């Protein structure tokens, strides 16, 4: 009995001593982004995350992959509600995996939206309504993903793509591309931010776009598309002739609905 009491005492003393050590190791691992930070999304959401963490432990990745495969089956069956539901599970299990957010938004904003847009069984008004609803769902998914991964250039870029290609909100597209570039995105995201700003209806955005394009032009990084948009902005912003670029290129006067990055 004496040894058993000693064992209990060792367990409790070690328990007290290990707590700060565990806190330290967990903090280190969280800093290195190897272990997830607790989500700050309100009590209800936190309890959900706690339950998932405690129930699935280190198997969240495995379970997420299984749900992702289920979503793929639902996608092949053209069951968009199921696709959305499964990706919702996947993203709750793996909120720091950018590719899941990206894939979920792609399914909603491109595949599901296009499916309803071209669905001949539906009335034209309803088609448009469903198209808009799914594009919005795609945007919402990426926006939610960016709460977890605010410095992920890929998610910002994909958000820019959806705003450009689907919702035609060029100011929002410009902001998204610009954030992608600011967070280490590829060089084209900087140009695309300016192109998107150039096509918006907001003069302040034109000014931003002009600033970016002029800087790139001065750095001898001009492409035919850049010159085209720069000339469009010079015209829209009434830049004095002396300050305009000398290149000859067709001047754009309207946004090009077909332009933009391909998915």
């Amino acid at each position, binding site marked *: 009995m004496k040894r058993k009491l000693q064992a209990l005492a060792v367990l409790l003393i070690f328990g007290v001593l*290990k707590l700060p050590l565990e806190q330290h190791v967990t903090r280190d691992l969280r800093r*290195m982004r190897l272990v997830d930070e607790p989500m700050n999304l309100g009590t209800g959401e936190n309890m959900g995350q706690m339950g998932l963490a405690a129930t699935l432990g*280190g198997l969240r990745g495995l379970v997420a992959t299984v749900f992702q495969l289920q979503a793929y089956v639902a996608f092949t069956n053209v069951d968009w509600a199921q696709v959305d539901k499964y990706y919702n599970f996947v993203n709750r299990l793996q909120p720091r995996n950018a590719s899941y957010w990206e894939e979920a938004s792609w399914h909603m904003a491109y595949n599901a939206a296009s499916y309803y847009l071209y669905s001949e069984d539906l009335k034209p008004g309803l088609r448009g309504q469903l198209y808009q609803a799914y594009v919005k769902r795609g945007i919402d998914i990426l926006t939610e993903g960016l709460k977890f991964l605010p410095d992920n250039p890929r998610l910002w870029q994909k958000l820019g793509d959806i705003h450009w290609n689907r919702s035609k909100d060029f100011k929002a597209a410009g902001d998204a591309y610009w954030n992608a570039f600011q967070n280490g995105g590829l060089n084209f995201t900087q140009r695309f931010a300016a192109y998107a700003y150039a096509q918006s209806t907001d003069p302040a955005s034109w000014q931003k776009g002009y600033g970016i394009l002029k800087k790139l032009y001065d750095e001898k990084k001009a492409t035919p598309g850049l010159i085209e948009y720069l000339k469009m902005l010079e015209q829209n912003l009434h830049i004095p002739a002396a300050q305009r670029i000398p290149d000859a290129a067709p001047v754009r006067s309207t946004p090009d609905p077909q332009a933009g990055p391909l998915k």
Partner: protein
Amino acid sequence: MSQAAAQTSASFSTPTVRFSPSRVWTLAHATMTQLMRMKILPFLLVLCALVVAMGFGLSVINPEKQLGQLKSFSLGSLQIFSIVIGIVATALLLPKDLEDRTLYTILSKPVPRFDYLLGKFIGVLMLIASGLVIMDAILSLILWMQQSVLFDAAVAQLHQDKQDTPEALAQLSEIVARQGLTWNLHWAVWAIFLKASVVTAVAMIISCIASSTLFTIVITFCITLIGHGEALIRDYFFQPNLHSTAKHVASFVLAAIIPDLTQFDVVDSVTNGQIVPWNAVNDMTGIAALYLGVYLFITHLVFVEKEL
């Protein structure tokens, strides 16, 4: 008369038996052989075959996703395998030795109980480690093969779509390299081994206290589940605005007696292509060594007094 009795007593007194690494090794080896006879390795080979088949059968949305899925499935299977083997093998060992009366044969010889415990523990760990090494080698081979096949296919697709710009190719190469075979994969397997070791040590304590195998398995599984939420319980305990004393005490007791298993959960990050630095490996190894040392000492304290 009393002097003669004292002399007789002295001549029969038990000599002090010291800790012997070679004896521990013999016991560990025997334990591993005993577990191998339980057909654990054929089960492992079936698991390997399934993972290999899955590696070539996962949906191809993009190469990054496919490699990620392969890693996720394989590492997840390894976690399940190592924890289940750790718990079940440890829970079976003591009762089986008691039933076969092997325990009495061993302990009737000059073998300290601690040597016996340590031998059993190392035997289980050796089995888990050899299983993980086999799986790691196979997974590495598949990943390496898939990596090159998927990269070539993705480049061909880009070429067909006339999107094969140097920028796009560089990004594709970077993505495939990060998701493919890297040292991080082996660190993830190491983390899985550390977690399984800690769970095995916990099972060892419970096994010494419990009277049935089923009880040991169920309780250790419960502790393993709670161990994955221990970090949240600890965060809850340390939060400054916790007014309820009952909640404070409950969270403290749980956090104090349960090991934090999330410290070894780097698998998801490795699957996502995150790099595991040396500091993290040292942190995980250090804390696991501490758990193992203390839990083995507690097991010894419980087992040394156990009536057999």
